[in-house]
Structures are given as structure tokens and as C-alpha cells.
């Protein structure tokens, strides 16, 4: 196996996060990066995963195009089940049939709480975001939640302004005290700098960093004094073959990798 040399941080994030998936698992995924991560896993080491989408799709096929959103009509073709949100968020996720879940997030804090609702006061916010969608349900119910976001210091405040999706709340046993079931909650956060996990007190720590990144650089880009694992390690870069599959088979039109989705000229031709 030959390691790739020329890859982007988001490509490293996608490929590293995909390694959390085991072939045969059932996943519940949100929109944005989780789509690319799971489509990449299907094309590589985990072709037999089943993916549940919040709009009501249970899917184990290969779509005709990379889905733009979790309710992309291309997912209806080839779906194993197409129904209601109660089929997926309800019976699959709340029913305890999901092995792990992936979410994109705007803001994540020290205890893995996610904010996708607002900055500042809730009633009259400085900046209003979209809201939970199904994210809070994922965070409350999924046995193993993996969060993805591009690393930016502003996106890692010590405490989020609004807990859209609960992580370990205030740490210690506050998640259990809130009534959330044991064995649920965030498991890992993958960013464009590295991978973070949670200690027994629910606090996020640096577990691994990407080639070319330093621990110091990660520390400087967090909104609090970040704990670092004694066993912190540098992850291997993607292989040339992994990168080829991601670029040529998973997202050949660079809809996510170069954000071509946001380029109107791509669609006018």
C-alpha cells in the first residue's frame, strides 16, 4: 500500500472517520459530511452497511449520484424501505436497532454538546442557525455518535450557547441524570486536525492528530484547555487507492470535496 501525499484535510477527515464503521452495521446519518463518509465506507471496507435516513429511508444499495441531502430523491430508488420518519428515527433509532450514528455540527463544546440552533440569546439571537432537524434525536438515542466538522477555534467554545443536541451536558453523570440511557452519547469527534474522544467524566480529549499537525496546533485551536491522551498518536495518511476511490468514485463531481454544490454554473449546463 502506498500512502497518498497530496490530500486535503477534509479528505483525511472523511477517510479517518469512515474507519469507525464496521461492515454489516446499521447506521443513522445526518446530512453533509456523514453522507460522504458512509458512501466512502460502502465503496471500500464496509459495502454491506445499512443506512437509515431521518425522512424515512432505509438503504443498503449504491445510489445513482452522491446524495445532496438526506431526503435526496435518488435514495428512493434502491431503498429497502421508504416510509415515515417514525420508521427510521422512531423504530430504527428509538427502537434501538442502530449501531452508530454520524452528524455534522456547527459548534461542539468541552462535553460534546452540539449547537446548531443559535448564537447568543435564544429568543432574540445574534445569529440564528437551522435548528436540530433530527440531530438532537441522534444525540439522545444513538449508542455511538460520531460528529464531524471542519476545525475552527470559533466552533469549539468551552460551552455552547444552546444545547441543541446533548453530549455529556455538564460532565460526570449529568447525562444519566437527565434521563438519557447509559451507553448512548458522543463517541468521537473528527475534524480537519484530528480525532477527539471522551473520558469517563465526559470531557473531550485529543486522541489522535493528522500527519503534519502538532498537538500544540490543536490545543491552540480549542476554546478551553484541551486534555490530550497519554497515548496520543499521529494517524496514517490515506492510501493512494483510498484517495482515488473518494475522488473518482464517491464524489467525482467534487460536490462535497470542492463544494461544487454551491456553484450555480455546475447546474446550469
Amino acid at each position, binding site marked *: 500500500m502506498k500512502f497518498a501525499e497530496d490530500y486535503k484535510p477534509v479528505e483525511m477527515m472523511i477517510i479517518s472517520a469512515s474507519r469507525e464503521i464496521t461492515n454489516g452495521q446499521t447506521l443513522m446519518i445526518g446530512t453533509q459530511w456523514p453522507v460522504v463518509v458512509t458512501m466512502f465506507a460502502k465503496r471500500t471496507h464496509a459495502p454491506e452497511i445499512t443506512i437509515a435516513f431521518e425522512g424515512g429511508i432505509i438503504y443498503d444499495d449504491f445510489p445513482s449520484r452522491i446524495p445532496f441531502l438526506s*431526503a435526496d430523491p435518488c435514495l428512493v430508488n434502491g431503498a429497502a424501505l421508504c416510509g415515515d420518519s417514525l420508521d427510521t*428515527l422512531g423504530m430504527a433509532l428509538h427502537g434501538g436497532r442502530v449501531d452508530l450514528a454520524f452528524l455534522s455540527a456547527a459548534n461542539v463544546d468541552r462535553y460534546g454538546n452540539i449547537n446548531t440552533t443559535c448564537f447568543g440569546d435564544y429568543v432574540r439571537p445574534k445569529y440564528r442557525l437551522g435548528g*436540530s432537524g433530527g440531530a438532537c434525536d441522534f444525540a439522545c438515542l444513538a449508542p455511538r455518535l460520531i460528529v464531524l466538522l471542519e476545525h475552527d477555534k470559533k466552533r469549539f467554545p468551552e460551552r455552547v450557547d444552546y444545547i441543541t443536541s*446533548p453530549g455529556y451536558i455538564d460532565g460526570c453523570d449529568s447525562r444519566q441524570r437527565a434521563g*438519557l440511557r447509559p451507553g448512548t452519547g458522543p463517541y468521537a469527534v473528527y475534524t480537519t486536525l484530528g480525532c477527539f474522544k471522551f473520558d469517563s467524566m465526559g470531557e473531550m480529549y485529543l486522541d489522535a492528530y493528522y500527519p503534519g499537525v502538532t498537538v500544540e496546533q490543536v490545543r491552540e485551536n480549542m476554546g478551553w484547555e484541551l486534555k490530550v491522551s497519554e497515548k496520543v498518536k499521529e494517524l496514517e495518511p490515506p492510501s493512494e487507492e483510498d484517495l482515488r476511490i473518494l475522488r473518482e468514485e464517491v464524489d467525482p463531481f467534487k460536490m462535497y470535496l470542492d463544494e461544487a454544490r454551491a456553484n450555480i454554473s455546475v447546474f446550469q449546463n
Partner: protein
Amino acid sequence: MSEENKVMSMREAVERFVRDGDTVYLGGFVHHEPYAAVHEIIRQKKKNLTVSRCAGITIVDQLVGAGCVDKVITAYVWNPVPKPAHAFKRAVEKGIPHAVEVEDYTVLTMNLAYFAGALDLPFVAAKTPLGSDIVSQRTFLGDDKFKIIESPFTGEKVCLIPPLKHDVGIIQIQRSDLDGNGQAWGILGDSKYGINSCSKVILCVEELVERDVIRKDPNRTIIPGCKVSAVVEEQWGGHPSYITGYYDFDWSYFLYYDEATKKLEGFEEYLEKWVYGVKDRQDYLKLVGEEKLQKLKAGIQTSGQVNYGKYKPWG
């Protein structure tokens, strides 16, 4: 079959069944979004509406920006591109064109609230959204939003979700007969229980079909005609979103909408061109253009035939 003729124009349906101050359910989960109906609501300048909308895209943005809405109950309002819903943001952050109050839910809790609404259950109990600010922060629903108790059966903490019910519900689905027996397929999201939690229903359909078409495939019916007040045949009524089997998502329109509505003046120009400047959906479709519509038309994929069987009379 009902005596009354329910089939009418969008203008008449909105005039007769949407009143100022109503609580309005807007159906569809990205899919099945009633854009044509919402444009007519804006044209008729309905006001003080409470909009209940699980997880849609720019439809709430348009209604809020046009000044029709005082309150929003939702899990998600955004442009799927993904970009902000600019008009919704302006209203929530700055009170432009006027302040709106938002009550945040999650997709699952909203589905359960609609389920409770459709069945008239006093509440349902769930393990979400415990521990979130969706539980702790409330606006206009106050104590009627959620309640956390210990389950009388297991002692574990559960969140009680009371029903959401609506004065009127509107959805754009594939087809119905003249009575409004409405059939939908593809991603259904919250639509089935949502539309069944409404006192009155305006059913917008891509196609009106013969009663036999419905009766030979009744599994696809999500709402019976006896609950429907108005049936509007409105082709392409879900554009720029999609209807499974009819047309694809118009991604470039959402990119255009993002650019066009970033600033207040741009949003007003958008409404002037696409809503106030057209008299109905047919007029709107001329602006979209035949070439674009042809590109968006869905191809054909059918399944093997479904046999419901024929059953002999007794004797």
C-alpha cells in the same frame, strides 16, 4: 362519494380555508412541499399565522419573510444548499419585517406530536429530547411544550410530548380522486400524521385521477377524502423541491434563491418577481421556463405488479 364538489383553484382554496391567525401545518419533508399554496397565501396577504413545519427548506423562509407569520413551530428551517434561510434569520434576529417567535422541536418529537395530534392522544412519552435546551427553553408554548416525568411503569425519566393539532393543513402530493382520497409515495417524513392532525385539509396534487386508480391501490392513500376540504390540481406545485416520480429537485433554483434573498431588498424583489408578479402557478412556470422543466422531469422506474387479489362473493 361526497355530494359536495371539493375540486377548486388554489386561489379559492386558500380564500375559503386559510384564515388570519390560523395554526397551519405545512406538509412534506423536503419532498411534498406545497410551494404553490404558500405563494398563494402570500399573494392573499394572510397574516398572524402560526406555522407548524417539521423539517422543510425554504417554504417557511418565504412565508415569514413575506410577513404572514407570527409564530413558528419547527425542527429545522434552512436552505438545503446548505445556506441560511435569510428571511427567517432576519425575522428572528432583527424582527424584520416583524418579530416571530420560534418554538424548536426535533424531527422525532415533532413526528410524535403529530401522531398524538392525529389520534387525539393526550401525549406520547419518549427518551428524546432529554438533556437539551429544546426541553428547557420555551417561547409561546410554555408549559404546553414538554414535560419530564418519571415513568409510572419503569421509573426512568421520560419526556411527555403533547399533541400538535392544526386549523388547516396543506400538502402537495402525487395524486387523489375528486373526493380527495390522497396518495403519496417516496419519502413521507412527517406527512401522514401531520396532515391527519388538521381540522381542515387543502390537498394539492400533481394529478387528479379516476376513483378506480385509487381503489385498485389503496395502500398508497395517506389521507381519506372524508378529512379533506379542498382538492387542488396543481402540476409542478412542489417546485423548486421535488415530487417522486414527477420531477427532480431544482438545486440551481435554491442557489439562486440564496443569492437573491441575502439582502432584504433582494428578498422583496424575489417576491415581486416570483409571487406577486405572477397570478398563479401556470404563470410561475412560464418564468421557470419549459427547457428547465423538461430537464427536471423524472424518468420512469416502475416495480413489478402488485396483486391485491379478487375475492368471490359468498354463496
